[in-house]
């Protein structure tokens, strides 16, 4: 306080006071907000769109399921080409020279071909055809595996509606048998629990693998698109049905809609970097020249304190 520039607002108020009851204010507010919450809950309830199972995916969209399975084997799915923290198949996104994704490393190892396809198929011990297909696939060199899976993926994409039954003849090795084997496993419901990472062997709490596999397909995204939840639909703010979502994410959502972010392959890294900077700026508003002066230039504060200014005189503009 003895410094050259004394902040006129620092210290205890010595001017006029008015009666106030802090405890009463708190209790009244608590009762009012509790009642308002109950009324809103009774009026509007809350959304609960049931989750998608792998079983449901395999039954409702078998062609998409087959195509996704083949893309895991071909190494072309989102997960298979993801990079850190799941695998080394790419370096991930970067913010200029900052390779944060790569530097954090591969800490949640996921090998989509093995984890989503081959390991579950190995459990189908009663199915000799599937076991023979897996053995043939594993015995082949990596280049041969890639060629089979790549050729079958191409053929599926050219078949009407991606229907495996209408694929042109070709050398796809054991890949079609493996894909239809996994489809059968998923349609039975068995794959849902098999993909969960059972860290303790029995209890399950980590859904990284089934979620990655589900998100590699088009089925989940199509459902989300229909509910206006996609990234390019301002989806982060939205909720299923007509419920309010997270409107406080409007600025974060906004960046994904505009250039350069909307066309960048580094959009996530850039938007997150920008939002971290802007969040820091929000915290540091009192120290940012220009921004901290906005309140003095806008007359809103004169409305807040109008009764005081009316009685004691208004400050100069």
């Amino acid at each position, binding site marked *: 306080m003895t410094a050259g520039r004394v902040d*006129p*607002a620092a*210290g*205890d*108020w*010595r*001017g006029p*006071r008015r009666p*106030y009851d*802090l*405890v009463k204010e708190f209790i009244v*507010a*608590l009762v*009012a*907000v*509790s009642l308002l*919450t*109950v009324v*809103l809950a009774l009026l509007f309830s*809350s*959304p*609960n*769109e049931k*989750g*998608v199972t792998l079983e449901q995916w395999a039954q409702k969209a078998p062609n998409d399921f087959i195509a996704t399975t083949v893309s895991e084997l071909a190494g072309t799915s989102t997960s298979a080409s993801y990079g*850190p*923290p799941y695998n080394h198949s790419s370096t*991930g996104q970067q913010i200029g020279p900052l390779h*944060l994704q790569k530097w*954090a490393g591969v*800490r949640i190892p996921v090998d989509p071909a093995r984890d989503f396809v081959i390991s579950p198929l190995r459990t189908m011990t009663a199915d000799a055809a599937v076991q023979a297909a897996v053995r043939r696939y594993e015995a082949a060199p990596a280049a041969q595996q890639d060629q089979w899976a790549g050729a079958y993926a191409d053929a599926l994409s050219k078949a009407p509606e991606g229907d495996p039954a209408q694929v042109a003849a070709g050398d796809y090795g054991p890949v079609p048998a493996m894909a239809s084997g996994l489809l059968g496993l998923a349609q039975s419901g068995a794959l849902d629990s098999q993909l969960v990472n059972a860290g303790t062997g029995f209890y399950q709490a*980590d*859904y*990284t693998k089934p*979620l990655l596999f*589900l998100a590699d397909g088009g089925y989940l995204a199509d*459902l989300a698109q229909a509910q206006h939840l996609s*990234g390019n639909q301002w989806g*982060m703010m939205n*909720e299923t049905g007509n419920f309010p979502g*997270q409107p406080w994410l409007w600025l974060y959502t906004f960046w994904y809609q505009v250039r350069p972010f909307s066309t960048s392959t580094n959009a996530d890294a850039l938007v*997150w970097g920008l939002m*971290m900077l802007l*969040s820091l700026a*929000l*915290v*540091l*508003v*009192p120290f940012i020249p220009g921004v901290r002066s906005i*309140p003095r230039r806008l007359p809103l*504060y004169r409305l*807040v*304190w109008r*009764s*005081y*200014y009316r009685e*004691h*005189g*208004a*400050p100069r503009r």
Partner: protein
Amino acid sequence: MSQTPASGRAGERSTWTGWLRAHTLDAIPPEHLLPDTQPAYVASWIYVFGVLALTAFVVVCVSGLVIALKGPTWWQVSSRGHFVNSLHLWSVELFFFFMVVHLWGKFFMAAWRGRRALTWMTGAVTFLASIGTAFTGYLVQQNFDSQWISTQAKDGINATGIGAFWNVLDFGQMLLWHVALLPLAVSVLIVLHILLVRTSGVVPPIGVDLDGRVEGAAAKEAAP
């Protein structure tokens, strides 16, 4: 320690406990903590949004605790549970609603004046921490929202490198963050924020000194 504090409680400082008590009372005098008067300028509806946000947070915590009592799947299988989930959702919407209006109000009052920057900063960090807490809530609903939001959000979080340590696809990890770590962080921030408000008092109007005089105003008597 050789200086006599303003409150004259130096005699109590021969023990650690006495020292802590004296320092606490010096820093937060009870009449500041629980005031029964306010400066005359605290007379606008904009001042109620802080306490509204606080009480909405209390409702968020109580409804969350009821869900915690029954476990994470209760609201999926019980209509009573679904109602408590509705209470939880709408109190969260109210919490953010009141918090944002409170933030707007404090911005346009330049409420960081008078060495109150730390009050603003703890409030802003509370807002950011609340966003994280609400986000993890969406992840642990075990429904379509959780599946879609987690698989979308992983890309952003992975791009920062944080995803390698904080796995939004790991239900167990997110559940514990949502029901324990983040609510604790938000609660501590709110307590700090309120203690700062109470110790430094409500910021005076722009252009008014601590004696209540308005700078440059026509000579009106400011004293009561």
